[in-house]
C-alpha cells in the first residue's frame, strides 16, 4: 500500500461522497418538509441522461448542469403533484417515479450509449493549494461538483435552521396543520421542497455523466439513489451528519475497486453491503433511543395533508 494509492483512495472517497451528498441533501430537504421521495434513483437517472445529452448538443457542461437540475426538479414535481396536491401514497408514487425515471432515461439516452462525452466539467484549479501534499490532490483538485456539494450543504443548513423560510419548511414536516394555522402554504412549501430535492438529485446524476464517468449507459446510477435515501436516515436528518455519512459510504464505494490493490482479501461485493446494513443498524438504534427522547425523523413524514379534512 503506497502513498499514491492511498491518496487515490481518499480522492475517490471525496468524489463519491459528494455524489451521494448532493442527492441525500435533496432527499433530506423533501423529508424535512414531510415528503418521502423514493424516486431518487429515477431522478438521478434523469439528471444523468439530461446532462449528458445536453452536453452533446451544446458542448457546454454548465448549460448541461442547469438542464439536469431542471429535469430532476420537473420529474420531482410530478411526485409533488401526486403526493402533495392529490394526497397519493408517498411510497407508491416515489417507487413509480423511480421506474418512470429509469424508463424515461433509457428512452432519452437510447441513441447516446457509448458516445464520447460532449463536454466534461474541468477540475477546479486552486493554484498553490493544489500542490499541498495529500490535501492538494484530495481536496483541491476535485470536480466543481464537489465544491458545489459542500456549498449546498452549508446553504441547506443555513436556510433550514437559520431563516424563517426554513422554520416554515420544518414546520410543514413536523405538523402540517400547525404550519397551516401559522399562515404558511403547506402545499407550496412541500412542492418547493420536493422540486428542490429533485433538482439536487438531478445535479448528482449530472456529476456522474459530466465528471465521474463521462459517458451514458443504462443503469449508470447503479443503486446510488438508494444509498442517498439511506444516508438521510444515517445522518439523522442533519446536514453535518449526512456529510460524515456521505464520506463513510463514499469510502466503501471507493474501496470497492481498490481492495485488491491494497492486498486485502475481502470480497468487494460483501463490502458494498455495508452502507445498507449500517443504515438498518442506525435505524434500530434511533428507535430504541426514541423511547426516551424524540425521534430525529420529521413527525409528519409520509403523511398527506388535506386541510379540508383537518
Amino acid at each position, binding site marked *: 500500500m503506497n502513498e499514491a494509492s492511498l491518496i487515490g483512495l481518499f480522492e475517490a472517497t471525496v468524489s463519491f461522497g459528494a455524489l451521494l451528498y448532493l442527492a441525500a441533501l435533496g432527499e433530506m430537504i423533501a423529508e424535512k418538509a414531510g415528503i*418521502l421521495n*423514493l424516486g431518487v434513483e429515477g431522478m438521478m437517472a434523469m439528471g444523468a441522461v439530461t446532462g449528458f445529452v445536453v452536453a452533446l448538443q451544446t458542448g457546454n457542461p454548465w448549460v448541461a448542469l442547469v438542464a439536469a437540475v431542471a429535469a430532476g426538479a420537473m420529474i420531482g414535481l*410530478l411526485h409533488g403533484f*401526486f403526493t402533495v396536491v*392529490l*394526497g*397519493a*401514497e408517498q*411510497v*407508491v*408514487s416515489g*417507487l*413509480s*417515479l*423511480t*421506474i*418512470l425515471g*429509469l*424508463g*424515461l432515461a*433509457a*428512452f432519452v439516452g*437510447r441513441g447516446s450509449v457509448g458516445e464520447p462525452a460532449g463536454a466534461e466539467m474541468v477540475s477546479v484549479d486552486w493554484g498553490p493549494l493544489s500542490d499541498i501534499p495529500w490535501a492538494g490532490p484530495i481536496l483541491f483538485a476535485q470536480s466543481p461538483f464537489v465544491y458545489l456539494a459542500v456549498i449546498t450543504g452549508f446553504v441547506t443548513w443555513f436556510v433550514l435552521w437559520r431563516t424563517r423560510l426554513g422554520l416554515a419548511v420544518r414546520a410543514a414536516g413536523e405538523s402540517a396543520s400547525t404550519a397551516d394555522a401559522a*399562515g404558511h402554504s403547506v402545499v407550496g412549501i412541500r412542492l418547493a421542497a420536493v422540486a428542490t430535492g429533485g433538482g439536487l438529485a438531478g445535479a448528482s446524476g449530472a456529476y456522474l455523466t459530466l465528471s465521474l464517468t463521462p459517458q451514458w449507459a443504462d443503469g449508470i446510477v447503479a*443503486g446510488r439513489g*438508494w444509498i442517498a*435515501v*439511506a444516508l438521510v*436516515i444515517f445522518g439523522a436528518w442533519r446536514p453535518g451528519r449526512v456529510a460524515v455519512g456521505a464520506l463513510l459510504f463514499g469510502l466503501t464505494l471507493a474501496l470497492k475497486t481498490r481492495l485488491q490493490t491494497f492486498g486485502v482479501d475481502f*470480497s468487494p*461485493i*460483501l463490502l*458494498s*453491503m455495508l452502507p*445498507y*446494513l449500517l*443504515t*438498518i443498524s442506525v*435505524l*434500530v438504534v434511533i*428507535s*430504541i433511543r426514541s*423511547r426516551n427522547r424524540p425521534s430525529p*425523523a420529521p413527525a409528519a413524514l409520509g403523511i398527506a395533508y*388535506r*386541510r*379540508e*379534512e*383537518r
Partner: protein
Amino acid sequence: MGRRAGRPVLVRREQVLRGGQPLAFGIGLAVALVVGIVLLVGSGHDPMRVYERMFEASLGDPRAWSVTLNRAVPLGLAGLAVAVAGSMGLWNIGAEGQIMAGAVGAAWVARVGGEWPSPLLIAAMLAAAILGGGLLALGPAIARARIGVNEIITTLMLNEVAIRLVQWLVHGRWKDPDSHNFPLAPMLSDNARLPGLFERAHVGVVLAAIVILLFGVASSRTAWGYELRVAGSSGATARYAGISLERKILTVLVLSGGVAGFAGGIELSGTSDRITESLSNGFGFAGIIVAALALMRPSGVAAVAVLFGAVQIGGQSIQTMGVSSSVSTILQALILFGAIAAGVLSRYRVEMVAGDTTEVTS
C-alpha cells in the same frame, strides 16, 4: 389571510363514483397509451403498429398467453406479498430482495439434492424458497413488532443486500467451474425444473393462482383476515378486541416475505435456467405498483399482474422493430400515475373556492 381570486380545492364527494377502481385502472391505461403514442411518434415509429405488435406478442395466441402468464407469476406473487402486508397497513418494499433470497434457498436445495426424484426436489426447493424470503423479512418484522422500527426503510435496504448476496455467490462459491471464468452459476438439472402446463407456461402459473386464491379467501372470509384489517385500521381497536399487534405484525411481514420468496423459487425453477443477479428483474418493485392498483386486494392482484405481464412481454417483443423496450417500463409507471389521478377524482371533485382560505369544506 386575505381573499384570493380563487383556487381549486379537492372536495370529498358524498358518494364515491361507481365503477371505482376498474374505471380508474382503465383511465390509467388510456393515459399511458396516449403518452406512449407521443413518445413513439416523436421517435419516428408508427404507434399503432407498435401497439399491435405488443398485443400480438403478449395476448395474441395461446403461445403468447403462456409467456405472459409465466411473467404474471412473479408479478402477481410479489403483488400479493405487498398486499398481504398492506392489508394491515404495513409496507413491504423488500419483495425484490425476498425474491432473490427465495431463489437462493431454492438454488441451494437444487445444488444439494440434484439427484433426488423431481417432485421431491421441486417441493423442497419451493419450501426453501418460502423460508428464504421469510428469513429476509424476519429482521424487519422483529424490528417493527418489538421496537417499532419503520419497515419501509429496513425492507428497502435489504433488497440491495440480497442482490449483492447473489452476486457474491455467483462470483465465488457458486461459480460454475466450466463457465470459463464467467461469473455464472451452473444450469439447473432437468429434475429441478417445473413441469410444463401448455405451450411455454409452467405449473408455477397454477401454483401462484392457488396461493393468491387462498389468501383471497383468508383475507375476506376468515377471522384472521378480519383481524388483520381491524389491526390495520386502528391499533387501539385491535388491542381492545384482544388482538396481539406484535404477533400480527410479525406473522404478516414474515408471511409476506415468504410469498415473495415463493415467487423467487418458481422463477428459478420455472423460467430462469440458473440463478443470476438479475433474476428478480424489478419484479418486487413492479409488485408494489400491482398491489397499489389492486387496492391491496388479492383478487385484483391476479388481474393486474396478467395485464402488467402482457405490457412487459409486449415491451420485449418490440425491440425487434427497433423500438426501445424502455417504452414498456414507462407505460407501467404511467398506468399507475394515471390510475392514482383517476382514483382521486372518483372520490373527490375539484371546486374553485374564492376567498377566505380558512373556510372548512367537507
